[in-house]
């Protein structure tokens, strides 16, 4: 059937995941041979339903699997051309890999300023921290206004800005975003979209994990679709936006206006598209 097109990656990939298999608790197989690449300067989107393994893939990349008793049992992850399977997160962040975790995960008891400074933990020079701080505040003026207030008292949108700002404090080369639009109003989702573009325009590559496929595909250079721990589709953002199956399963737009019951019955079967 639909053979996944081999994506052409122009530049040297900044992040390359090759054929990894991830197992939780030594028994639960979550990723079954996933490969993915992010080239320098790209925005890459990763789509998929709940439980497809998107967050697990991010954990495998950032070294957070350990916290969840997960293990990479096969395959390799390399960041900046160097194999990074066994690196701890601290080292990866220092080398330029930052992430915005799902559900924001800001330090609610700390002030906004302290949250930002915690993001710059790996940065040694004070000058670099100040520069990063200026850039973040430029991007999110609201964080400067509320610098001294407790982070937990910010609104949801402001907390998301804080989470992104915190990740940018380490001046990353690659930024991983796990569902930045989660729980935000449509207007704020738009804002997040512009922000991701801005960040990318300033030279940071972005790997964007999203359920809001319309938003993600509209800004992504390339995208991958995950299902059941496998990558089932990949292509450029425009290609996938135009794809009939993607439109139906992820954008909620059917080709025909009205679906018959028989179509609904075959939905499950069709969804196992490239298997």
């Amino acid at each position, binding site marked *: 059937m639909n053979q996944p097109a081999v994506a052409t990656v122009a530049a040297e990939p900044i992040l390359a995941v090759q054929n990894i298999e991830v197992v939780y608790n*030594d028994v639960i197989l979550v990723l079954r041979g996933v490969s993915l690449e992010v080239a320098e300067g790209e925005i890459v989107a990763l789509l998929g339903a709940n439980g497809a393994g998107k967050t697990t893939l991010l954990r495998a990349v950032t070294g957070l699997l*350990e*916290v969840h008793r997960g293990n990479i049992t096969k395959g390799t992850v390399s960041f900046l051309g160097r194999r990074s399977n066994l690196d701890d997160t601290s080292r990866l962040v220092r080398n330029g890999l930052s992430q915005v975790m799902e559900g924001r995960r800001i330090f*609610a*008891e700390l002030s906004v300023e*302290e949250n930002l400074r915690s993001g710059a*933990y*790996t940065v040694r020079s004070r000058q670099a921290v100040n520069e990063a701080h200026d850039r973040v505040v430029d991007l999110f003026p609201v964080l400067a206004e509320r610098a001294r207030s407790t982070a937990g008292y910010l609104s949801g949108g402001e907390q998301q800005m804080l989470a992104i700002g915190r990740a940018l404090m380490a001046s990353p080369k690659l930024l991983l975003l796990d569902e930045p639009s989660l729980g935000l109003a449509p207007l704020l989702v738009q804002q997040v979209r512009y922000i991701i573009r801005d960040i990318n325009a300033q030279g940071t590559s972005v790997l964007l994990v999203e359920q809001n496929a319309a938003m993600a595909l509209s800004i992504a250079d390339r995208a991958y679709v995950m299902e059941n721990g496998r990558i089932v589709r990949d292509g450029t953002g425009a290609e996938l936006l135009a794809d009939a199956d993607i439109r139906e399963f992820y954008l909620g737009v059917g080709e025909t206006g009205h679906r018959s019951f028989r179509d609904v019955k075959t939905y499950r079967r069709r969804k196992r598209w490239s298997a």
Partner: protein
Amino acid sequence: MIQLLQGLFDGVAMGAQYSVIVLGFVVIYRATGIINFAQGGFVLIGAYVTYNVSQTWGWNFYLALLVSILVTAGVSMVVQRILLQWVLRETVGVALLLVLWAVFYFNGWGHVSAVATAAVVGLIGYGVTRRIEQHLGTGQTKELPVFGSIMVTIGLLFVIKQIVPSIWGFSELNMGDPWGLNVTKVGGLVLSHAKLWTIGLMAAALVAFFAVNRYTKIGVAMRATHFDHEAAVAQGISLRVVFAVAFGIAGGVAALAGTTAGAGIAQLTPNLDLVVFFAFPAMILGGFDSPGGAVLGGVIIGIVQNLTKVYQPEWDLQWLGVGFDRVAVYIVMLLVLMVRPYGLFGTKEVHRV
């Protein structure tokens, strides 16, 4: 009235020591989620190192105190690294157990051969366990197993309580008396210099801790780790550093408390670590994970203990028995827990690492 004020003053002086010890517990609990029962052992080490440096080597008392703080902090960090990070990995643990067994078993061969044999046996044990682990596919995790770690700290307390007397003996030692029996009288109040110094030193330590916790990078990292351990790791905060700093702080403050508790009229004995039994109710009173609560809890316990001592004879409560002050602190703790089950400042849900 004078009696009450005097009781309060003495209570605060005593409570300040408890506060500092509790701070050690709280800092470690916040960083790692374990309760370090070896804190009493660190108190003991701190006091004896001060004794050794100031009396045996004849250094200035304050210099000795500084040395003791640094040494105890160092011991605490090393112990943390070795016991809680290595031994809890099965491979190293098995190897060490084998070494211990072999040292005793082959003791008859003379020291050198016994140790050498033990080392060989340990290496074989390490290799075999490593093989089994690889075969089973159980990888190493950096996570601290909470229960195992707490058991290790209990064991460590016993080890320290054996090692300290084997170096310095069981007899009462005089740590020197930097403040003598000098007192300042304000009205009818007798303020002994030793107690004023105790309060001053403890206050300085607490201020230093709160400044570090609030304004420095590592302080922010420690608070972030306490709030959300995984998110802190995601920011690149190294748990190893946070754990080490927490144990270092705990060791340092323990040395400070141990030195003031063992100096002066109080003689230095290997039972000094019993002071921790008053730090426990203080910690529970203040609410496990709050440094501010630690300070308040310590002071409250100190005051309760002293006022009980003062008023017990006066109110004809002798029938409650000698040493009722030690019971009184637990009664106060129970009463507070009835009203506030999480202590005065504790977080409602208890997070575990």
